[in-house]
């Protein structure tokens, strides 16, 4: 009886002890020495390798929390001046613009950054800087389809009925693409475009970018809208089925005779209350430098933001293309309008 009872006293006391020890171990985790605290939406192994490399070079420990940019922005807001974060990294310009408009970022004057990152890939106030570029392109099956589509507008052309594959409108890459169309052509034209694309969809939006390309190769549709680096990831997949898909995929850079292909960035900004501001700037400079930029290109098949760095072999094989040089801040501003148009056009 008494053994049993003790058991149940423990049941109540144990979690309290455990919590105490956990909080102590968490509190004791901050070793003295130089650190930089990063909130990042980039969940890539290559990024962790770059942080390790930075620590090796500078002795500055990089602490990381990975989550979606929206969640990290909310956390930054809730933490306010007490936030431990020094650097916010996102995979999309809209989120950087949003963080900036909420006053969560501070300007950074750095000759290194000015030299490494071209003017159109950073905010005018130098609140954020692009680190890599991603082009939103049209993929097709080289073995089966004539690439007779050459602009985003064609995706909405009734001639392509039941042939277009594209993912859901809750995906930020699609939101940014439509935001760019709004910025160029206005809301009415953008809505016509969205309705046209919905009318041409080969199936209701589902799955991710890789799934759109698989559906193209499966013959469910002919043209899929995807980000470039997913083609690279398919070609280097461990799954033979995915490699097979990657090998058949051809790429069309839309709007080469017009305003150029829609390009988004993954980028970073130093937080407004960064306790380790100087280290954050050093990390940002390191990430914009030749070594890190080459890693982004080689490991993750992204276009480097630093024009001095060659893209990877695969990217080079696609040839050079005309980029839409729209001010990326405008994309962020049109996000809500884009979503409203998606809803009205019945784009799930």
């Amino acid at each position, binding site marked *: 009886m008494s053994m049993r*009872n003790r058991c*149940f006293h423990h049941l109540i006391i144990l979690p309290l002890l455990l919590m105490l020890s956990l909080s102590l171990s968490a509190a004791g985790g901050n070793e003295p020495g130089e650190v930089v605290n990063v909130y990042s939406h980039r969940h890539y192994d290559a990024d962790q390798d770059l942080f390790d490399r930075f620590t090796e070079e500078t002795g500055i420990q990089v602490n990381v929390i990975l989550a979606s940019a929206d969640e990290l922005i909310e956390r930054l807001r809730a933490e306010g001046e007490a936030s431990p974060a020094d650097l916010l990294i996102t995979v999309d310009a809209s989120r950087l613009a949003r963080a900036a408009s909420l006053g969560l970022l501070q300007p950074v004057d750095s000759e290194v950054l000015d030299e490494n990152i071209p003017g159109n890939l950073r905010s005018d106030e130098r609140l954020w800087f692009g680190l890599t570029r991603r082009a939103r392109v049209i993929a097709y099956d080289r073995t089966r389809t004539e690439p007779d589509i050459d602009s985003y507008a064609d995706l909405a052309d009734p001639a392509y009925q039941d042939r277009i594959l594209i993912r859901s409108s809750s995906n930020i890459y699609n939101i940014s693409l439509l935001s760019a169309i709004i910025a160029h052509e206005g809301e009415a034209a953008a809505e016509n475009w969205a309705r046209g694309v919905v009318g041409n969809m080969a199936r209701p939006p*589902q799955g991710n970018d890789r799934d759109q390309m698989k559906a193209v*190769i499966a013959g469910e549709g002919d043209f899929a809208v995807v980000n470039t680096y997913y083609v690279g990831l398919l070609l280097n997949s461990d*799954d033979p089925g995915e490699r097979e898909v990657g090998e058949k995929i051809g790429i069309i850079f839309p709007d080469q005779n017009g305003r150029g292909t829609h390009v988004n960035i993954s980028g970073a900004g130093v937080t407004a209350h960064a306790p380790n501001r100087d280290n954050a700037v050093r990390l940002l400079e390191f990430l914009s430098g030749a070594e890190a930029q080459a890693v982004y290109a080689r490991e993750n098949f992204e276009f480097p933001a630093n024009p001095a760095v060659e893209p990877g072999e695969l990217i080079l094989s696609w040839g050079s293309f005309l980029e839409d040089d729209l001010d990326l801040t405008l994309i962020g501003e049109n996000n809500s309008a884009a979503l409203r148009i998606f809803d009205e056009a019945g784009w799930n």
Partner: protein
Amino acid sequence: MSSLRYRIRAASRTVFSGWSVALALLSIALLGPFLDPIRALAAPAGETWLHMRSTVLGQYIRDTLILAISVPVLAGLFGSVSAWMVSRYDFPGRRSLEVLLVGPLAVPAYISAYAYEGIFGYFGPFYRLIRNILPGLALNRYPDISSMPGLILVMAAALYPYVFLLMKQAFRNNISNALEASRSLGDGAGRQFLRLALPMTRPVLAAGLGIVMMEVLNEYGAIVYFGRNTLTTGIFRAWFGFYDLSAARRLGGFLMISVFLFLGLEQYLRRNRGYGLSGKRQAPLERIPLRGLRGMQALILAAVPMFFGLVLPVGRLGTWALRELPDARWSGIFEGLGNTMLMSIGAALLITSLAVIIGYSRVRRPHRPLIALSDLSLMGHSVPGAVIALGILGVSSWLVSLTGRSWLAAGSIGLLMFGYATRFIAVGQRPVSAEMEHRLRVFDEAARSLGRGSIHALVNVHLPNMKRVLLAAFSLSFLEMIRELPLTMILRPFNYTTLAVRSFELASNEMLQEASLPAMLLVLIGIAGVLVFQWGEVIRND
């Protein structure tokens, strides 16, 4: 002598009101993160809300209703038939099957959805095989797994174990007397199940279906992947797409009100039907041995849900994981493994303890407003974790500015634990409360008449006799915890990862193969958790 008795009575009265205070405080604390959404319902509707109402809200509600009804129905069918088979019959393989049937709880639904697409997608093994057999079959003739029926199957196969676990306990321990009587009257097996076993265990079934429904309402990843929209996905669209917090809160409030209505309905059903179960301890149900062909049939019938919930997704994950073994990044995986174990055990203990305090308080002080408040605090299970996390961020920044204590800030383990308790208290509290309600009405007066007060009665008399249900609460919360994703991601300290987080990070980069390794480890831990749970049952039954 009489003054001593008076003193004891006075002291125990203080303790009784202590139970009400405890119940009230705990419920309010657990409700804290939800206050904003409920308040938002009273505020005037904004532009985003009007836009959503005129365009997409109807579709969100339709998909939510379809899923919230059909997934529990299918999961209820899976769970109760399997539970009946393993409790009523003995057949070859039954013992292992009992463990494996709970296994799907260790597979996050979104991972399962990816795995299903990996099997039934055009390039998956299933259609490869079909194409080899029937080369001419056109693509549009293939049934598509990413359809509403496919989603219902994937989710029901992931969630039926909640029903299975609760129903198995009920079948094993609460109906044997009535069942023996029915059997001696010559009722057949089907009749015993439909006419006797199911009606008698209706409250338990309702509790199981309730958990499944809440899981359905908060699911995000699998639903988005299959291209569907529910109120939950709508919350994220309003919040992170339109950046309209008030519209998101309104949707959240909407969701919570419907959950509350459902909880009320469940309470009503329970009250109306009575418990049907006597408080008397019954001998465990004798199993009827089935051999040969009938044994095989029983095994196959009982194993159907496990096939969909465990064999198919884990088979896919397993082949991916094997491919990944040579160049896996083990350091992150091992770190995630350690953290997952420590955090899940800690949180499950915390949740079980809170469930005991709340459950006992509810029985000791069954005031209607208090019970209603405590019912409300179960809502966390139906609200998407990210919404709770953001609610907790709000509470935390308020507390920190009030007290200046950093242990209340985001990134502290204390806050993370609070988040887990808010989120999963229902998982622990439902079984504990159900057991306490029917057990304590009978035993509590007797126990307390020994004169040592209610804490004494709780610790020395009731808890030792509730081991199994406590273990059930602990293991169910543990199984929830190992999969927990959004709270951990948003509230965690720096450089902190778990297996679920790691596999999500990889999957969100569309690196499903790489994600399969941590996901497989997660499944193995889950199975270990189920084994511990089963082992507890065996001890008790001896």
